[in-house]
């Protein structure tokens, strides 16, 4: 099955210029090979360098042990899970897995279905904690755009929820404009963010 591909753009970190990219509806074998043969070796090398420099574990990349091949395989087994990828200049730049079986938590939306972002990760060279400047900027925004678009398509009105990794809270709060519902003791004390239909419309129109 071939993935549906949308034409999008990322911004090159070193020059601030737009670069044509793809947003792919589906995580395929090539994306998984990029993760295995390019993302992981890069991450492992950086972590070894951090270890050698005495950087505390708490500051190591928190996606270090995510296994996208297994996640994608498990997602295939379950209805209601979808994968997305961004690709630019022949390389996967970001991956996201979402679920369609969760409900909103914001009081006025409580119980209504939303798209829940199970996992979202930018390629390590796009993470400023690992490379400055990052190779491309905009990966997170494009993937969240995909999640919101899916939510609209599924008649969930753009409702989207996720648990942010601690260093990403600012992105979801300030750039995506999501509501911060605080730390979730049931989910490793990660901060839960949710986007209402109104916030989704604002997000989709931000660049206009």
């Amino acid at each position, binding site marked *: 099955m071939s993935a549906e591909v949308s034409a999008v753009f990322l911004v090159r970190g070193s020059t601030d210029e737009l670069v044509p990219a793809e947003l792919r509806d589906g995580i395929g074998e090539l994306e998984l090979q990029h993760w295995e043969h390019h993302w992981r070796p890069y991450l492992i090398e950086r972590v070894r360098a951090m270890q050698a420099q005495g950087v*505390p574990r708490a500051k190591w990349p928190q996606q270090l042990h995510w296994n996208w091949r*297994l996640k994608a*395989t498990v997602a295939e087994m379950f209805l209601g899970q979808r994968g997305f990828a961004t690709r630019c200049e022949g390389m996967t730049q970001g991956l996201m897995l979402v679920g369609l079986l969760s409900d909103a938590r914001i009081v006025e939306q409580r119980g209504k279905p939303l798209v829940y972002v199970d*996992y979202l990760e930018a390629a390590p060279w796009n993470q400023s*904690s690992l490379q400055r400047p990052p190779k491309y900027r905009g990966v997170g925004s494009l993937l969240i755009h995909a999640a919101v678009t899916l939510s609209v398509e599924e008649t969930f009105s753009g409702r989207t929820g996720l648990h942010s*990794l601690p260093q990403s809270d600012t992105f979801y709060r300030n750039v995506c404009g999501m509501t911060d519902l605080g730390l979730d003791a049931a989910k490793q004390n990660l901060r839960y963010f949710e986007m209402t239909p109104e916030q989704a419309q604002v997000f989709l129109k931000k*660049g206009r």
Partner: protein
Amino acid sequence: MKVHVTQEWCLVMARREGDLEVGAGPRAPYIESEEIGPATAEARIAFGRFVHLIRRQRRMSIEQLAKDASLDLAELVRIEDDLHHVPEPRSVYQLARIFNIPQQRLMQLAGLAVPKSERFRAEAIKFAARSESTEALSSEERQALEQFIRVLSERQEA
């Protein structure tokens, strides 16, 4: 699904995103657990890969193994996927039973018991290094798996 975005949207959002991190999803639990040393961490790499490879060697789906071992599917996914997930002792015992591996050895591999021998630790690390690939079980992987099963099955040193 098609996504419709303009060049302008991409540029504005990329600039707003700037150098912010964007990761979402559960973090690896080891980060909060400073007492887990590199040796234990490497043993757990071996444990997750061992379960993953032996399951594939036996041509079992992850669901089938969860059912046969009476394990929660989510727990089994985390065992294979989350490098530093600390498995429930019951899960390890159940897997040892299914795979016919001495329970104590598998407990050591899972980081729930301290290995008594340096050789065991070294073999676990060697196995982890040789089973990096998650593609189809290659002859090299099969060899590594079989050799490691032999080590796991050896009598415990005093």
